[in-house]
């Protein structure tokens, strides 16, 4: 159930991300990503009873930081360029925020689920998904997150977030999902 929600949320995220940046698939689109993060939090918050409207701008978040839609921790999907497993600069802050959170909460465990787009062979894509998840893992470990807090699983191209066969869908499928 949780996974489905995550998937759906990431889909929503993507729709908005695309609306934010129409032409160039790569490049720095931090503004676009932030817009989507906020609305992602809003869509995803209902499961736990956290209300999006409570987190109005300038207010102080009182609940679980993981539930704060305005926090960088609301970024749960890291997207990658074609055949690349290097984390893009626009995601470093979000990953850093997650690393801080995990380092401060050593009892928390996150699953880093690596994915690839459908192009090319399936087993190679399984490797690519793992490399992506490992890139995120290395960044977090460098910030003091313990090995046993990070579980890497690659799904390769087996679990698409978007099913079309085009650049937009592929961009959404090249990702690492952070699942707490």
């Amino acid at each position, binding site marked *: 159930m949780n996974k489905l929600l995550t998937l759906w949320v990431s889909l929503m995220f993507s729709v908005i991300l695309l609306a934010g940046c129409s032409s160039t698939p790569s490049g720095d689109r931090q503004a676009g990503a932030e817009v989507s993060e906020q609305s992602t939090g809003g869509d995803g918050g209902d499961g736990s009873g956290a209300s999006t409207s409570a987190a109005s701008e300038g207010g102080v978040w009182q609940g679980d930081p993981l539930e704060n839609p305005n926090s960088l921790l609301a970024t749960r999907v890291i997207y990658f360029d074609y055949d690349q497993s290097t984390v893009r600069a626009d995601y470093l802050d979000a990953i850093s925020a997650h690393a801080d959170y995990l380092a401060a909460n050593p009892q928390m465990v996150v699953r880093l689920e690596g994915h690839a787009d459908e192009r090319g062979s*399936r087993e190679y894509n399984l490797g690519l998904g793992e490399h992506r998840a490992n890139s995120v893992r290395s960044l977090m470990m460098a910030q003091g997150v313990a090995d046993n807090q990070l579980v890497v699983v690659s799904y390769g191209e087996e679990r698409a977030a978007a099913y079309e066969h085009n650049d937009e869908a592929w961009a959404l499928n090249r990702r690492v999902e952070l699942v707490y």
Partner: protein
Amino acid sequence: MKKISIVLFLSLAWLHTALADLTIEITEGVEGALPIAVVPFSWQGPGQPPVDVSDVINADLQRSGRFKTIPQVDMLARPTAAEEIEFKDWRALDVENLVVGQVRPQGTGGYEIRFQLFDVYKGEQLTGYTIPTTAPNLRATAHRIADLIYEKLLGIPGAFATRVAYITSVRQGDGQERIDLNIADADGYNPETIVSSTEPLMSPAWSPDGRKLAYVSFEEGRSAIYVQEVYTGKRQKVTAYKGINGAPAWSPDGRKLAMALSKDGNPDIFVYDLATRKLKSVARHYAIDTEPAWSPDGRSLVFTSDRGGKPQIYRVPSYGGQAKRVTFQNSYNARASFSPDGKLLALVTLEDGSYRIAVQDLDSGIMQVLSQGSLDESPSFAPNGSMIIYASKAGYRGVLAAVSVDGRVRQRLALQEGDVREPVWSPFKK
């Protein structure tokens, strides 16, 4: 090149599901295919025969693209035994070869099929057999007869009496995906689901005796390699190391599995001994090493690696050693496998922005692109080396396609619903 567009709609009753029909379409055939007439076999029993044996033989030969079969309406006579044949009738139709036969019930639930193959110009019998069989095996026996005809006329064994394993995925009403590992006859009949999961299944691989399948299942939330006996359903979890457990490939003697494991941090190639359960590292690099495939003599493995920056095919002795790059054309080459004679590699290559199936001659290094899609993958040789089956896309759906090794014959197979992918052709039955 002349196009033969014949569409055979094969109505199938899916055992497990209501997945509907599999369509086999011959999209392109060979000019100069051998003209052959398969005369409807006589039925010497009560009512209707359970399987139209001559129809199965006819469809097999036609589907291979190597034969031009004669429609029944053009037949001037319908002999079912040697003494009834007027060879001049068939010469008039430019038919070079003629198949006649009879099917009769024998004993309880048994049948006997008698067939003869003739050279029309010489007026001579080339081969002929009487084969006992049973109702459930009638189609299989018909495929064997087609194999015998194919071999007699073309000099290489037919691969009609073989099976194909493949993965299907269907999104259910509740949004959940159902992923199945299936096997079917090479003509798409008799599909059976042997594993069903809501988590990914991938990379099926036949054991050399055709009795087992190795595959990857995520049913426990992460990848593990299983080996399952096809006819009993008995299975065993082979590896479930931390990280990727992927790309199982049987050694030609059936005793070992080559595989990709990332237990040491990133995917490397290992060989696992099924009897001793010992693991041997064969290729190790901080890049992605995956998709091992054995040479037919078992002495070497090819695998995909991006150690040079982009995925390319490398070859390494199967006991380990120096890996040598074997593909140099195009920036992306992956998922290689050897032809049964060991002379060719089938692989996925990126050419002009499209992922296509190609064969590379190992001696000359020359690559020939065979498929025409943009997202083609998972090539698998027929055990006689004549065709390569692979996964392709038609619109939003995954479909299966096959192409002859010379690129001159093309077929497409599609389920009416859902995605079909990762076809693997079985070895010959033993």
